[in-house]
């Protein structure tokens, strides 16, 4: 008799946790069914997230404001720690880059003249919109950034995002005022590329440790550290010719089918406060 009132209470707790867990599992299933990530952008759960993002805008901006002085201090410390040897290396590198820029400028002008001559139009029509980085990811499991441009500014899911140096990712979630960009270094990112030196194609994917890996490069392709990796345009998401990074190591064992190639991205998000979102219409981008 004495125990009878307690049993229903225990069962209530058990039933509650099972019920709520089932609700969570259903949500996970729906999310997976919708496609997850950028693929399911029109799904119900993705739309709910977009609506909620409106509420979090002030907090994200607060985070950006609070982080600004810390970033400045971090950069200053980083700059101070550069020794004279580093300075000499940088000066040498700077001279080399100046030389390269001059050559490239020459090539650019030549290219422009030839293009006019052949009456070629710009294949990509890459219009870009600048956006400020609000904050990096709020969790350990997704390498993303929030930017201060949303659907009201013409942002759309799938748009490529660049830094001044090269590609950094793709817009995955769009709210009215902000968007979320999944970085190339995220394990769920992938982009079709080729090596500038020998035009060998492959796919660059992110990884859990934050490195980029170039996959599907056959063993017979000569890959050396320093080779530049650029987007191939295959897949229709990213325009052709955007710099991703350069090869830092290439290795394989006799049993491998493809080489294991590590790519150092040219664009490190931590260094930037602004990014460029390529807002060219999808049809134009896809035509590349």
């Amino acid at each position, binding site marked *: 008799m004495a125990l009878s009132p*307690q049993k229903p209470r225990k069962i209530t707790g058990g039933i509650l946790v099972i019920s709520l867990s089932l609700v969570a599992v259903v949500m996970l299933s*729906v999310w997976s069914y919708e496609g997850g990530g950028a693929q399911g952008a029109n799904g119900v*759960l993705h739309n709910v*997230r977009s609506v909620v993002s409106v509420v979090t805008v002030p*907090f994200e901006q607060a985070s950006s404001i609070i982080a600004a002085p810390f970033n400045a201090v971090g950069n200053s410390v980083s700059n101070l720690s550069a020794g004279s040897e580093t300075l000499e290396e940088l000066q040498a590198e700077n001279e080399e880059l100046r030389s390269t820029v001059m050559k490239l400028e020459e090539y650019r002008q030549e290219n422009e003249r030839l293009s006019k001559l052949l009456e070629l139009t710009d294949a990509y029509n890459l219009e870009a919109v600048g956006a400020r980085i609000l904050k990096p990811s709020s969790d350990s499991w997704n390498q993303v950034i929030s930017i201060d441009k949303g659907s009201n500014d013409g942002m759309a899911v799938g748009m490529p995002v660049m830094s001044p140096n090269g590609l950094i990712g793709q817009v995955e979630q769009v709210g009215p005022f902000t968007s979320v960009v999944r970085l190339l270094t995220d394990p769920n990112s992938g982009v079709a590329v080729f090596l500038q030196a020998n035009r060998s194609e492959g796919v660059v994917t992110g*990884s859990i440790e934050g490195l980029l890996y170039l996959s599907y490069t056959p063993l017979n392709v000569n890959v050396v550290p320093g080779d530049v990796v650029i987007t191939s345009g295959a897949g229709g998401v990213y325009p052709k010719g955007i710099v991703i990074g350069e090869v830092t190591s290439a290795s394989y064992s006799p049993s491998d089918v493809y080489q294991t190639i590590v790519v150092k991205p040219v664009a490190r998000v931590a260094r930037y406060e602004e990014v460029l979102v390529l807002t060219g219409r999808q049809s134009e981008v896809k035509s590349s």
Partner: protein
Amino acid sequence: MDHSQPRLAIMVISAFVALLLQIIIAPIIAIAHVVPNFILIAVVITATRNAPVRSTIFGFIMGLIFDLISVGPMGAMTLVLTLLGYAVSSLNKGIFGGGLLIDIVVVLLASLIGELLVSVVYAVVGSDPEFLLSLVIKVLPAALYDSLCGLVLLVIYRFFTGSRSTSTGPDMGRPLRRKLR
């Protein structure tokens, strides 16, 4: 005397503070892409002081909020924090029985188990293609970071709520203890 209303107020305040910390502070204090999970910490700490039913509901709501503000699989954190809230509260009431030292151990273990569960859920839905590697690179560092932040927040939480266990809410705890006495 009914303690449920002040306790509910403390939970709401905890939820709000955890949410602010997660959105504003967590991204700033991330180390090598490892971000502390203040929402998980809040669920664990409140579960050490509240009854299972309330802790389960609190875990569910906080998990749902986390899922809504993040970009991971929707429902992943909801599932993990629902289970964690229930488990921590049940174990703390039934086995451990409270106390600062026990609470510290609970926070450490719950952080590890929570991050591990997240990793498992991510692997199951295909969002973590490198499960074994992520155990070393993500789960352990994240659990450690959560634990450190959790210990600080636990002390603060106990300072504001007192060291006395408040887990005698309207559900299962108190009647059972009375009968046992």
